[in-house]
């Protein structure tokens, strides 16, 4: 059992928790992920590490409430326990030698992009960050990004905060104005990452994308997280989760992401109904 040390609501869909997991905290690095199970009947879900405190043995996770499992997790409070928490899995984001990087986060993906931006900033790299959200209600981590970025641009789809539009607009503007980056590192919805790659391609800037497919064990055993990368099958859990964005078959990844959509919707609704009953 793993104790929830703290819980913080970042917005109505996104929650942050710190979990007591000293072995994971000791090893975790930006870009890696963990797998957790809320309770005995729980599903194993991967979540990227959003931060860690090695001394206190805490690992920070930030998750969006999208399905039954994240809903169940969100119903837990600080001081309560979850059944399983294993990691750190996958490979850390490669940052060695980078001098100028644009970090692009979308929605809850910003939670994963932040530790990467932090790491880059701490090693003296120039960091421009672009973080995008659907609207101002969903905005998270703005101050945290500000603290580690040389320039920060916030976008919202509806213009309710920051720049109206999506993250590729400011990126395109910077690149067309001759801004040079060694690399773009992006984490967010697949469709956003796909368009970041397409934009960067025009200017020949390498893009690293962080993939978050469906997983079970996270150690390579099941192959559920497979992606087509450069025409070959790769497993996100052992080969990734970071990949060269130019090589990813995003359309396939998007389709694979919908495998259990009906099941999840059904489970989520059932879970909500149960919760409502409890509240009554």
């Amino acid at each position, binding site marked *: 059992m793993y104790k929830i040390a703290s819980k913080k609501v970042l917005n109505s869909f996104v929650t942050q928790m710190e979990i007591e997991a000293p072995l994971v905290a000791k090893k975790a690095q930006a870009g890696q992920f963990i797998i957790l*199970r809320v309770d005995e009947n729980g599903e*194993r879900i991967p979540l990227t590490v959003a931060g860690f405190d090695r001394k206190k043995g805490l690992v920070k996770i930030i998750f969006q409430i999208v399905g039954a499992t994240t809903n169940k997790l969100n119903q837990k409070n600080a001081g309560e326990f979850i059944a399983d928490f294993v*990691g750190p899995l996958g490979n850390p984001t490669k940052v060695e030698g980078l001098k100028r990087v644009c970090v692009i986060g979308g929605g809850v993906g910003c939670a994963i992009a932040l530790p990467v931006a932090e790491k880059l900033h701490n090693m003296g790299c120039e960091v421009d960050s672009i973080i995008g959200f659907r609207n101002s209600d969903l905005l998270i981590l703005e101050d945290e990004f500000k603290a580690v970025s040389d320039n920060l641009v916030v976008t919202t789809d509806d213009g309710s905060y920051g720049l109206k539009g999506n993250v590729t607009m400011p990126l395109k503007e910077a690149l067309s104005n001759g801004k040079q980056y060694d690399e773009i590192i992006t984490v967010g919805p697949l469709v956003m990452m796909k368009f970041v790659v397409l934009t960067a391609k025009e200017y020949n800037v390498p893009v690293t994308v962080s993939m978050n497919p469906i997983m*079970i064990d996270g*150690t390579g055993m*099941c192959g559920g997280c497979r992606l087509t990368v450069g025409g070959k099958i790769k497993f996100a859990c052992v080969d990734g989760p970071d990949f060269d964005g130019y090589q990813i078959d995003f359309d396939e990844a998007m*389709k*694979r992401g*919908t*495998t259990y959509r009906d099941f999840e919707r059904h489970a989520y609704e059932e879970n909500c109904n149960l919760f409502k009953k409890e509240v009554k």
Partner: protein
Amino acid sequence: MANMSLKRNEMPTQDAKIRATNFCEVALGYSEETAIDEALRCLNCKNAPCVSGCPVNIHIPEFIEKVKQGDFEGAYQVIYKSSSLPAVCGRVCPQEKQCESKCIRGIKGESVGIGRLERFVADWHNAHTIENIEKPLSNGKKVAVIGSGPSGLTCAGELAKKGYEVTVFEALHTAGGVLVYGIPEFRLPKAIVQKEVDALKALGVDLQTNVVVGKTITIAELFDEGYKAVFIGSGAGLPRFMGIEGESLNGVYSANEFLTRNNLMKAYMDGSDTPIFKAKHTVVVGGGNVAMDAARTAKRLGSKVTIVYRRTEKELPARLEEVHHAKEEGINFAMLTNPVKINGNQNGWVESIVCDKMELSEPDESGRARPVKIPNSEFKITADCVIMSIGTSPNPLIKDTTDGLEVNKYGGIVVTEETALTSLKGVYAGGDAVTGAATVISAMGAGKTAAKSIDEYLKNV
């Protein structure tokens, strides 16, 4: 008086129609009377050829003699001297290729049902004997065992009995390895595995789940923490795919994923949060035990199932009993059939699988007849689910984080066979991590060998 019947006593099973809709164990086991009757078929041969067919050399005629006398506990003690997991092996060993293949009775008629008797004896023991396991006096030496599958459980048990302080590290949330995530409940009830795990704990073994060695902790760090020796029993690893078009469509699973969702995550049960796709027609590619398990699981989830295999039924690597059971349950066998492409619909879901018809030619390097494609024989099978069960390749997590650990060109850990010692001092390995996908019994044998070597090594440290 010897029983000279040419036929062995049949294994009682759940009715095929009924069992194809549930996950309860298929084979029900011999009664005491049947077991004695079957034991009486054993001629107690002096040279006991069956023993040479057993990877751990169980004294087969000796235990069967005890069964004849009705001394079932005595029989258990004979087996237990050589095998620490008889209830498991009696169920999952490919006996017809091992002990039973050497049985003299098999020359004219059917061999003695050695596996069935082993299972009977183990189940009788589990039902009638209250084990009084005591934690042996500690010798203060710490040993780390990586993986809690058949090799790890055996190695840990042997060492714990000798007084070592053993910690088993398991990557998943439940101990048992392939016995839990791979082999389905209907073939190996999980309560049997749990009993073995509980027995280990009673011996004082510390079991740590949710630790991925190579990620959470490395082998070098284990030594830093005071472990004097390490056994790697991390299992087979990454599922293989064929490399054909359409393998990433929705509805294509590796057998590992499909079975893990069902067995470990209990997706078939109400109340489990883990989803599984319930298909209309499932095509399973492959002919091993894992393919049979996947096919029979899909059947139980309500799908029509076809197994496609590129050789003939004669070459199927699966246990004979599993093939029989699968057929009884209404699974179609499309032999001499090799997939070339999977077609999808516009939403990215499997629609059909395109296959070539094959024929057999001369034997290849494995000694099995090589299947060759019959030109222009392509045909299509309509299906909405495809399960790839064509083997695994070794897991890179430990190799990549352990300097100096030698692996072969297939990625299997290199060991000296007699000692299970790897290229690193104090590091031993066994099971599928060494051999690639093999059997429970051979993994168990390797765990035992390693335990013996570790004991010899640490006696002098």
